[in-house]
């Protein structure tokens, strides 16, 4: 970290608020972001699972794909991703991946169709901070005439996550209560226009709230004024998503991993498998038919020692894989991890050895998530 000067880092519209709240700031994906607040990573994690946590995710990229009608815009995106975009209803949201021509994952992203017929033909994209530039260049280079990408750096993004998120948000924004998981709506928050979706990255019920950058502080302060809500930093965001079994781009997925290897083949619906009309289809369809050579799995270390990313995974004395995310799971109350193993070692219950500090430590392949999902279905 020593070679990164804070002058080079970008900030979100909530930067001053993070500092006011006592956030410990660190460089992350080119931004100066809070890794934790005075409550600490453990406390923030448990608070989110018990009540509600507020996350600044404004570093993520927001953009619109805009075409003349839904079918044209969705068709343009389907040329880049393996998901069902044409089939999205108004205000429906879907998780998908941008693919290289070799079937590797350029980024994972959330796609939402417009919430009203008046501006249909627009898809809202939310992409990872560190991949924004790559994604935007890739998408722009492959769009047909009549469809354009509009990036929205004037928008901020908040996530409110946890079992009390719905109740708290509905006090300001009545539209929140009517949404189910992966549905979006336009609404107002104490008179401020916003776009919200019932989604998130913690395994809990909750919302992502897109709002004009110059209004986000008002929304954040109003939410933080409730005793149920605490500000949550990147540390707990990472432990929450790890327990939820969700991939972090750059750690668990990248341009070398396919959706099948990453165990997210569910992003590819049957009709697109049959059509084979997405980038990298040759590799991906072969992996779907024959099984991939390696697979992302959950891993539970047997002792109490956490196994971190890049820990070698052994079985019978040979290397069979590597941990890609690992640490202590506060809700699981013990170490949890995920990583890639050779296909023969991917079945839950399989014995593995994790080479932590040079010593083999017993572990087992485990089903994910490590903390049950509690989405509002």
């Amino acid at each position: 970290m020593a070679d990164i000067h804070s002058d080079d880092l970008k900030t979100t519209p909530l930067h001053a608020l993070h500092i006011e709240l006592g956030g410990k700031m660190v460089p992350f994906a080119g931004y100066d972001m809070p890794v934790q607040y005075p409550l600490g990573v453990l406390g923030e994690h448990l608070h989110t699972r018990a009540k509600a946590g507020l996350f600044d995710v404004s570093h993520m990229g927001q953009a619109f794909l805009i075409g003349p009608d839904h079918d044209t815009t969705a068709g343009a995106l389907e040329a880049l991703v393996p998901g069902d975009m044409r089939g999205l209803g108004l205000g429906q949201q879907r998780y998908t991946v941008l693919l290289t021509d070799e079937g590797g994952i350029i980024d994972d992203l959330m796609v939402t169709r417009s919430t009203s017929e008046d501006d249909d033909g627009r898809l809202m994209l939310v992409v990872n901070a560190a991949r924004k530039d790559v994604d935007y260049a890739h998408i722009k280079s492959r769009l047909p005439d009549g469809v354009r990408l509009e990036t929205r750096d004037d928008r901020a993004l908040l996530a409110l996550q946890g079992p009390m998120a719905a109740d708290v948000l509905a006090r300001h924004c009545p539209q929140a209560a009517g949404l189910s998981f992966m549905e979006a709506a336009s609404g107002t928050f104490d008179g401020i226009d916003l776009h919200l979706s019932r989604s998130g990255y913690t395994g809990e019920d909750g919302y992502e709230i897109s709002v004009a950058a110059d209004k986000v502080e008002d929304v954040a302060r109003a939410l933080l004024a409730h005793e149920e809500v605490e500000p949550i930093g990147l540390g707990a965001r990472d432990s929450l998503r790890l327990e939820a079994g969700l991939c972090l781009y750059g750690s668990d997925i990248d341009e070398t991993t396919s959706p099948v290897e990453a165990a997210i083949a569910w992003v590819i619906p049957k009709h697109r498998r049959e059509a084979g009309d997405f980038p990298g289809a040759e590799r991906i369809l072969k992996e779907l038919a024959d099984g991939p050579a390696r697979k992302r799995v959950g891993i539970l270390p047997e002792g109490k020692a956490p196994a971190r990313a890049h820990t070698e995974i052994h079985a019978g004395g040979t290397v069979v894989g590597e941990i890609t995310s690992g640490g202590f799971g506060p809700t699981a109350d013990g170490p949890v991890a995920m990583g890639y193993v050779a296909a023969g070692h991917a079945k839950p219950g399989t014995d593995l050895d994790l080479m932590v500090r040079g010593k083999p430590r017993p572990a087992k392949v485990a089903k994910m998530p490590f903390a049950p999902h509690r989405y509002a279905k």
Partner: protein
Amino acid sequence: MAETKYTKDHEWVRIEGDTVTVGITDYAQEQLGDVVYVELPDVGKAVKAGDEAAVVESVKAASEVYAPVSGEVVEVNETLADAPAGVNEDATGAGWFVKLKLADAGELDGLMSEDAYKTYLSELD
């Protein structure tokens, strides 16, 4: 009262005769955040100054605790195995890691006094 000395790596050493107790300072535990796991050496292990004497893991990262002086491990703080948060709660007391039987008492001269450590800390910020 036993004398306490400090290292630049934020360990403390409490000297009682030819035995020293080793822990990390309050500054260090605060930097680490919530401690969730502590790995201790076997009793009887000989360590040289600068060797890894223990590993302390917070939610986010693993950090080594270096032996400030050379010696033989004569006792480890077993209570930390079940209650690693003891490091956060009382870093300079009940949250100690190991006791070492000194191999070379002269090595203690290279460590900082409490006043020198306080000055060192004030210069870090």
